């Protein structure tokens, strides 16, 4: 018995009579074929979706409209071959250049002047509050891969959990994993780190390393780590408009205050004396008066400079 050429198609469409089906099943395992087709029904062909097609169709139509308005209808598709190549390669070249130089281009620098503070929110939710006369540099684009900041001056950090967060200064390095801390580095001889939350690891240029816990502070002077000390207050002083010092040389105290007041302090011969106490940042005269009474100085202001003289 000969089997018509189109019989399988008819069977698949359910158009066969019982007899024809029986005849066909002698040649083919129809159950197995049916099983196969049923399984296939769970699959679908991959096509570009309606929305995407529709959206890009709009731009394609406007494209052809502008093309046909600049030249006559079908000539526009017969541009010289090399133009197509150039149009194709140009973005590629830009992309390559962009990726090669991205890390250099994207270096972000934030600088604060005297009596100015700024803050910045990073992509991962970490924040940095920048004290006056400070410069921070970091790579915002690489932030998800590498959280690294170069700091000159003082800043307070609130670090979201994630990779190592590294603050580099000229006098040492601080590394953390999700915490809140303050780094103060005036020059290459001295820096201080205060940790408000979590843990931070501080290392000096000789790579000596120490772990700082919450409410502890440490300073590095002349390239050496000092001792861990308990912080008196958990408040971040400069953000609450005051400044606390602990056996700090007058020279450093005045240098620090100059940042907040945009004024010059001169204290000839007194720089080596040490000061412990809290000084307000709201008013320069009040600050100078408080420092004078505590230390036994007198002060006078001339234009943009305040002179301290020992009254002893």
């Amino acid at each position, binding site marked *: 018995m000969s089997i018509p050429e*189109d*019989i399988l198609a008819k069977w698949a469409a359910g158009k066969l009579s019982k007899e024809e089906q029986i005849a066909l099943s002698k040649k083919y395992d129809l159950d197995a*074929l049916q099983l196969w087709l049923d399984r296939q029904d769970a699959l679908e062909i991959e096509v570009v979706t309606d929305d995407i097609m529709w959206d890009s169709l709009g731009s394609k139509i406007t494209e052809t409209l502008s093309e046909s308005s600049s030249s006559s209808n079908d000539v526009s598709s017969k541009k010289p071959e090399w133009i197509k190549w150039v149009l194709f390669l140009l973005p590629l070249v830009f992309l390559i250049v962009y990726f090669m130089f991205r890390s250099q281009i994207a270096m972000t620098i934030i600088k604060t002047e005297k009596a100015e503070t700024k803050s910045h929110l990073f992509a991962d939710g970490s924040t940095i509050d920048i004290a006056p006369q400070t410069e921070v540099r970091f790579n915002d684009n690489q932030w998800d891969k590498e959280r690294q900041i170069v700091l000159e001056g003082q800043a307070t950090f609130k670090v979201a959990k994630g990779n190592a967060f590294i603050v580099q200064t000229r006098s040492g390095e601080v590394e953390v994993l999700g915490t809140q801390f303050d780094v103060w580095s005036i020059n290459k001889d001295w820096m201080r780190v205060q940790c408000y939350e979590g843990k931070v690891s501080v290392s000096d240029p000789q790579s000596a390393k120490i772990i700082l816990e919450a409410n502890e502070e440490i300073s590095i002077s002349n390239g050496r780590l000092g001792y861990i000390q308990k912080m008196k207050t958990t408040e971040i002083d400069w953000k609450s408009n005051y400044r606390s010092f602990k056996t700090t040389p007058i020279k450093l105290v005045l240098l620090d205050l100059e940042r907040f007041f945009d004024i010059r302090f001169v204290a000839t011969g007194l720089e080596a004396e040490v000061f412990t106490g809290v000084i307000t940042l709201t008013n320069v005269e009040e600050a100078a008066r408080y420092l004078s009474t505590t230390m036994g100085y007198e002060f006078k202001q001339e234009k943009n400079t305040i002179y301290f003289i020992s009254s002893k």
Partner: protein
Amino acid sequence: MSVCAEAVFKEVFDRWQKPLQVFLQGRGMMIHKAADSVQDCFVKLWNNCGDVERDKAKSYLFTIASRLHIDEYRKAEVRLKYRKGLSPMVVNEDGQYKLEEQEFKNKLEQTINSMTDKNRTVFMLNRFEKKTYKEIAELLDISVKAVEKRMSNALKKLYQENIIQKK
């Protein structure tokens, strides 16, 4: 009614863009090339919308599509994916089942890719787009008999490559 009104044009687009993609993939175009060509068809339709009645839009589109295909003849590569949420088995799939599905998918892809362009187009329009033989005949501008012949050949190929070996 011509297709110049955007609502009509969108309706035509929604109705035929997927069958056109399947048609061109069946003719052996890669997925993105097919999508691109389908868009070209609609661009042409839009630019000549004044000349095309709504009911003629379908054959207009398929004619352009097959011309584009002749211009751009390529080797077949059909890609399949799972229909999400339809099969109840997918809900509690385990590793073994997944593996089997993947294997099945690969085999099916291979089989479809090994069909001739003509048979593949018919097979895909019928199985994936659920078009009847009569609809396919209209789309491709051939007789129903020819569609049935091509479909039978496609099924025969599928049977020979996958089911006979199992027995």
